[in-house]
């Protein structure tokens, strides 16, 4: 939890969003931030020595939901190695309150969940990766200038194996 709060503070320092460490832990008033790509882009390029695992998913995407526990486990197991998972939901904006937030509560997701609300997909998809066709699930792992993109599903072991080179 300490790591997570620290990272929120770090984002706030860049002027992207105000830190609100209590946000994720208080279920009753759980909020998921809905951002456009400009805001998300800064989260995809944080040059701070931390390894970020950014997963693009949606509540209606079965293979995405299937692999979510692996990302949650990774976030927990590798927090002490300066790794943070960010779950970027592509749920429809009108589903934010009815679908996404109840899902995050029910699954008790501990990784940071961001809702990307930016219809100009042809503009932002290539900025995430030139190799991304737009299918989800998709994942970016990066640390400073080192970066890999995956348009595929993962098992926990596969995810761990992809993460390890970033930790050396």
């Amino acid at each position, binding site marked *: 939890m300490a790591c997570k709060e620290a990272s929120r503070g770090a984002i706030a320092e860049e002027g992207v969003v105000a830190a609100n460490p209590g946000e994720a832990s208080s279920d009753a008033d759980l909020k998921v931030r809905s951002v456009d790509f400009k805001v998300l882009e800064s989260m995809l390029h944080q040059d701070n020595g931390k390894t970020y695992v950014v997963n693009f998913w949606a509540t209606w995407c079965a293979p995405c939901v299937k692999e979510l526990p692996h990302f949650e486990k990774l976030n927990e197991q590798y927090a002490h190695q300066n790794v943070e998972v960010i779950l970027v939901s592509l749920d429809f904006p009108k589903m934010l309150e009815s679908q996404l937030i109840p899902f995050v509560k029910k699954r008790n997701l501990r990784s940071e969940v961001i809702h990307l609300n930016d*219809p100009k997909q042809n503009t932002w998809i290539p900025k995430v990766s030139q190799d991304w*066709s737009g*299918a989800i699930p998709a994942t970016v792992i990066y640390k400073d200038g080192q970066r890999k993109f995956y348009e595929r599903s993962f098992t926990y072991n596969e995810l761990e194996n992809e993460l390890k080179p970033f930790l050396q």
Partner: protein
Amino acid sequence: MKIHSTLIAVISVLALSAFTNDLDKGYQVGDHAEDFSLMNIDGKMVSLSDFEAAKGFIITFTCNTCPYAVAYEDRIIALDQKYKGKGYPVIAINPNNPKAKPGDSFEAMKTRAAEKGFTFPYLFDDGQKVYPRFGATRTPHMYILQKTEDGLQVKYIGAIDDNYGDADAVETRYVEDAVDALLDGRPIEVANTKAIGCSIKV
């Protein structure tokens, strides 16, 4: 030391992407497309060569279950209504394996087509042989083909328009712009676009 390891990482990423590019990714704009024969929801086999009067095709890889595909159903019907008479009918193909996604079974396709009143063939890619040839990766995924003297040429690959969530907020209609350009004999300005969609279920 840090520079050294970064360099190795960059080289390995480059090597990997070079390898990926060597794999067959399907049709690119400008490629020629092979015809196919797939079963329509009415039980009849459909090939592109059956459409003698067509100037080309608006092919959509779509399905019953993907919310993005569903969000575009009405716009696909509108495309067929607008362009079938002008020589560019819509041909919809469901690429999903029903074993992986029961809601995309042949029976479910019939039901969905009836509910929505599809005005175009809705074909089942039985055995999943056709979508890899195209290089489709998601639903919905659009391909515009034009009949030329030496066969069917791929003219456009990508999204339908630039706003999946709100048809009224669309600013650029990529597919319409591309078909209009073909009908007018103009070059297509935007021939490749990307959009979020559901991965094809194998």
